């Protein structure tokens, strides 16, 4: 788990993770917001279906790929979370696919 330090302040905002309501602070990235909401595994690999979590948080590893507002395979660590944003994990082979 990850937690904000107790004296951290910031504007709260709401977004959804796989349709469920979640909270974040303004300025956080989608990947950070997922980790802080307790969602660690953000996708499974297309090769073996193994679970993956954000790894580098700096745009290099592409492990934090998620679907954001309907657009698939976005690097969660490079997108700032917005109020009302719809984030979907990419768990389950073939989930993020054709027609999106």
């Amino acid at each position: 788990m990850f937690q904000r330090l107790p004296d951290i302040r910031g504007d709260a905002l709401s977004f959804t993770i796989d349709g469920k309501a979640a909270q974040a602070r303004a300025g956080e990235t989608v990947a950070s917001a997922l980790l802080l909401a307790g969602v660690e595994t953000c996708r499974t690999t297309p090769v073996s279906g193994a679970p993956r979590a954000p790894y580098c948080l700096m745009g290099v590893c592409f492990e934090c790929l998620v679907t954001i507002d309907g657009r698939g395979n976005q690097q969660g660590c490079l997108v700032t979370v917005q109020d009302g944003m719809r984030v979907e994990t990419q768990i389950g082979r073939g989930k993020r696919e054709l027609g999106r």
Partner: protein
Amino acid sequence: MTGADVLVIGGGLHGCSAALHLALKGVAVTLVEKDYVGRHASGVNAGGVRRLGRALPEIPLSVASMELWRRIEELTDDDCGFESHGQIKIAESEEDLAKCRARRAAVMEAGFAHEEIIGQDELRALAPAVSDHCVGGLISRGDGAALPFRTVQAFRNKAARLGTRIIEGVAVRGVARSGGIWTATLADGRRLQAPVVVNSAGAWADRFAAAVGEPVPLEAVAPMLMITERRAPFLTPVVGAMSRTLSFKQFPNGTTLIGGGYLGRADPDRNVAAVDVRALAENARTVRDLFPVMRDAQIVRAWAGIEARTPDGLPVIGPSATEPGLLHSFGYSLHGFQLGPIVGSLLAELIVHGRTNLPIEPFSIARFAAGRPA
């Protein structure tokens, strides 16, 4: 100085195929490649194994080559990633369909029946994600695709196992013939001798041809390819289009490959090819128009390989017109991959038996001789 029966210059698919077929006939071959085998066009093309849409003079070779592709594992001990799910040229309009019918008639006239017309229903059954405006197409059902670099490497490795000496990372600086023997000088100073030379040096082949007094107006070009992220399976045949240049396919792993001969910048002197994204824009538009599901697909890679193109778009295959003991195999003009197996085989026949039953006159280098129209 070391000798061999045949010296092959250039380790593209054609050079490796010639080496393999010669080795199968017990000929001692040395193949010299300036980079590594399959470095340029042979290793980085779209991998189309296609009879569909070929220039009429190429069809007999292409049809014969397809027989070899069908038993490629027997030939090379590797499946080369070859899969046969057909190739289709999509018709986007009634005009396109008329072109399809005319083409089929011409192919039938030449004595071949592998190209067939399909209507909208069959097109949709074969390529469910195709755009609604597409009305049918031309199909060659036995065609398919293979993995280019893997294929070249398979030919190389089998040739090597049969005793071919393969020298990679060293360029041939020049060849000269004296007393019926060719001597090739390598960049590292080594000299190799052989009574027969095969010039399969791709975009660099014109330099060797010019050196023996038969210049060829070869243009070095750099066809580009793009590859996307994985998508859910939606396409098994390889598709092109009647009125646009395209080669589009999906691999079993879900990634898609987009090509069609859009050109980047080739620099054969520096041995580099650069991608030109502006030229790829039209290629991307074609895919977007024909397969709207691809709109938000992410391109993860694009690349270009150096390839040689002749003015008439036909390759140069067969004996030199000026020097005995020299055979050419180059200038495949962006569509030589499928011909690789058969041309290697017919060169081996020419070298060992002095003849081939396949019609190779249209590919003679003599067509570029001074005074003859190109």
